């Protein structure tokens, strides 16, 4: 199965019943699969007039309690930024898949990149936190897309599947489970306010039509959802909670694989560069070389770096000019060496071996 097709299947398995999208290479197969499958599953597929409308429709659908998603690539992702901030501010559970391609601008529509990793974290204005998953295989396109819905619902936050052209268009064997975990948001308790965080900072959810008369606004609002745009305390309380509810849960959200914890030289990867690292490690078994592969990049699991107490150097091959290097570097004392590659192709094993020899 193709990665993009597996993404659509994962969404359907997780109960996604609304897709609003706009065609864009290299993500289009996801929309096509959803267009075929959703009507038969009792869901809604709608091709919107642009990506601003796509994410808007997804947020609207999500507020009816429907699991909703969109899929896009760089240029469309850029267009979605304002409403992604709206989803963060209004705590709307929804899933945004970005099949990354070379940028900036129209860039390389048919070539892979990981150039939007900071955009998915910081791309909309203001302070907020979201969750970003990074599959490295077709199986993970299924698994992590399904998981994204679970996380989006649990934390009431827009959740990203940050894949790329390589994984999106890769074909591999996939095992589709009989059922996937599909927790829903905690319902809004009787007497509770719709934007009241409680102990974990996550409000209960009262979808439209459930009789709670919820006012949803992108303006700074109080726990009732009512705009309160001038009180510094109201803004401080809201935005700190929006950030804290995700950041304080990063151990629960974290998902990573650590190989050879005693290693001295440690590759840190996410997405397809991990495949090259795995190849290198298969070719030359060596316990002094470790590998930390992140399946969740945001919120960043800095504690995962401590799995390697003997690490002397971290090496980071990325399909960008080193976007995640600074995030890793700020959590460790050891040098973090960027091995950037842009242009659309994966690092070759030879390139990584050369880096290994130069920096170990």
């Amino acid at each position: 199965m193709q990665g993009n097709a597996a993404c659509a299947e994962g969404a359907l398995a997780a109960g996604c019943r609304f897709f609003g999208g706009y065609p864009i290479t290299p993500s289009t197969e996801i929309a096509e699969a959803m267009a075929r499958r959703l009507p038969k599953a009792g869901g809604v597929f709608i091709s919107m007039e642009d990506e601003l409308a796509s994410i808007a429709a997804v947020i609207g659908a999500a507020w009816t309690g429907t699991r909703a998603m969109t899929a896009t690539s760089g240029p469309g992702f850029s267009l979605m930024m304002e409403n992604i901030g709206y989803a963060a501010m209004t705590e709307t559970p929804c899933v945004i898949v970005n099949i990354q391609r070379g940028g900036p601008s129209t860039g390389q529509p048919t070539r892979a990149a990981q150039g939007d990793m900071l955009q998915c974290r910081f791309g909309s204005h203001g302070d907020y936190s979201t969750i970003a998953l990074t599959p490295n295989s077709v199986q993970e396109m299924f698994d992590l897309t399904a998981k994204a819905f679970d996380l989006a619902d649990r934390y009431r936050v827009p959740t990203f599947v940050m894949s790329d052209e390589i994984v999106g268009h890769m074909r591999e064997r996939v095992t589709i489970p009989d059922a996937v975990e599909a927790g829903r948001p905690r319902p809004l308790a009787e007497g509770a306010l719709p934007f009241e965080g409680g102990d974990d900072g996550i409000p209960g959810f009262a979808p439209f039509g459930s009789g709670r008369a919820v006012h949803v606004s992108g303006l700074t609002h109080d726990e009732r959802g009512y705009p309160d745009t001038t009180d510094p305390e109201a803004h401080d309380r809201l935005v700190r909670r929006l950030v804290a509810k995700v950041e304080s849960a990063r151990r629960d959200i974290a998902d990573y694989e650590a190989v050879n914890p005693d290693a001295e030289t440690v590759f840190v990867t996410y997405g397809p560069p991990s495949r090259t690292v795995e190849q290198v490690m298969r070719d030359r078994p060596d316990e002094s070389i470790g590998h930390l592969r992140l399946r969740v990049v945001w919120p960043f699991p800095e504690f995962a770096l401590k799995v390697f107490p003997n690490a002397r150097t971290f090496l980071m091959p990325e399909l960008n000019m080193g976007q995640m290097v600074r995030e890793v570097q700020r959590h460790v004392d050891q040098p973090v060496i960027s091995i950037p590659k842009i242009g659309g192709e994966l690092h070759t094993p030879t390139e990584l071996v050369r880096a290994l020899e130069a920096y170990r």
Partner: protein
Amino acid sequence: MIAPDWFRDDRLPHIYCTGCGNGTVINCTLAAVEEMGWKRDETVFVSGIGCSSRAPGYILTDSLHTTHGRALAFATGVKMARPDLHVVVFTGDGDLAAIGGNHFIHACRRNVDMTVICMNNHIYGMTGGQGSPTTPAGAISTTTPYGMSEPAFDLAELAVAAGANYVARWTSYHVKELTKAVAAGLQTPGLAFIEARTQCPTNYGRHNKLRRVSDMIEHLRSHAILVQKHDRLVAEGKPIPEGAFTVGELVRRNRPAMGVQR
């Protein structure tokens, strides 16, 4: 106050300026909604950004106050996901015709089953009175200090051309007619678009020799001509009065619609 059960008393005082026409349009809308017998639990108000778009925040239903220009796209998601909910959109001329123009024509084309009420005050009111795509030629605003040099959009004609099933235009002077038009829109399957021209004494009238609220309402009244009269004048080859705009029902039809509950 019409339909008191539908207001959020705890949101008062509201943000509208003295003499603003938006309250009239909200009242007309809620009167029509109540006439339909809709329940609050089954009704969702959606809006974008601007003075008009603050309206849902004062109504005691589920409501989505969204981003500038995108209300119709959000509303499309709500309605397509839950066709059993009634969806009403409040928007303004800047929200709908400028930043949201693309969503406007596509929502009309899709003919999604919802009612869209545009409070057209011919100005960006919330930001202090800048020229909008419906500011009349020659009108003074803070960004057209020498008079508006661009032609204005006719929003109702745009909705007709784009495919909405019901289109009407009235003003905040024509309270009864506006209420009836909204009710007709609520009843029509497909997209109903009602343009409600409203006075903005604070940011429009003040710069355009219409300083008093009554002057602005009188201006709306005296420049409105029934669409039937307009058509008769055209057929008879007679001139249309300077600055006149049509009011009345511009279209009521039965094109295929989306999101209609079966």
